[in-house]
């Protein structure tokens, strides 16, 4: 019995050697990168290209973030300098050498003079106001 089995086994190994090689052992002619991308797309995952793009965008943001701090500090320095200059110099000079009160005094004086002139002119018998008033009185009474 054992002899018979051995003989069959021998025959089988002989046949197996004659068979063509298994296709699994052969190198596959498939673009693995493309396959990975297709699987990623089908599973709605991010592809390598999109990841690369995202990375580039992140780097860009990171770089711009660096400049953002510097830009902020420069703007802040200018802003504080302007506020400081306004409160410390411009406003003080404005208060110390203010001309508004003198101008206001002159303008008030001028206004009073003009008002006096206007009243004296309106009170004269030949003035337009007097004539109009006289006309109204004549018509009314």
């Amino acid at each position, binding site marked *: 019995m054992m002899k018979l089995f051995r003989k069959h086994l021998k025959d089988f190994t002989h046949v197996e050697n004659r068979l063509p090689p298994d296709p699994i052992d052969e190198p596959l002619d498939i673009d693995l990168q493309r396959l990975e991308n297709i699987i990623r797309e089908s599973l709605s995952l991010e592809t390598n290209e999109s990841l690369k793009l995202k990375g580039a965008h992140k780097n860009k943001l990171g770089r711009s*973030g660096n400049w953002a*701090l*510097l830009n902020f500090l420069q703007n802040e*320095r200018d802003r504080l300098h302007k506020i*400081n200059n306004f*409160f410390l110099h411009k*406003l003080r000079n*404005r208060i110390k050498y203010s001309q508004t009160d003198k101008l206001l005094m002159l303008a008030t004086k001028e206004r009073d003079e003009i008002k006096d002139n*206007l009243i004296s*002119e309106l009170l004269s018998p030949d003035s337009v106001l007097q004539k109009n008033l006289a006309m109204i009185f004549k018509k009314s009474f």
Partner: protein
Amino acid sequence: MFREIEIHQNDQNYFDELWIKNKIGESPHYITISSILLKKYPIEDIITEIENSLHRCKINPNFPYPLYLLHPQAGCTRNHAGHPLQMRTLPIIYSIENLPKHYIFKNRIPTNREKAILQKVSMLRQMLRSFSYDEIFDQIIKIKKMQRDYSQVLREIDYYQQILKK
């Protein structure tokens, strides 16, 4: 850059210490009121107390850096007189998103160049903190009033001159 300050008590001494502890005026801050405190006191009283404390400590909520009060119902809450809460000296906002974007950026370790500018900024900031803003604003209001009076008188003169020409 904004820093949060949470208020747990409605006490004058507590507020005075809080401003010193958090270095108000050296960077922008926003105040949040704890819910326990809001249950105890009306919002109007808390704001009045904060404003009194700021006035006493000679801190201006706008210069050199702003100090905001974050209150979610700021838009609809009204005071005893019926005026909205925004009519206060303390700026009130109802959401963190309403904070000015100018001060919002990612913090990181500064470079040497940035450190040099930062030193200059901190020096200017100290100078600005030393000003007495109440006196300055009183003087500005005085100048403004005088200029308006001058403008009014000039307008009056112009009117009289027009009558005289006729």
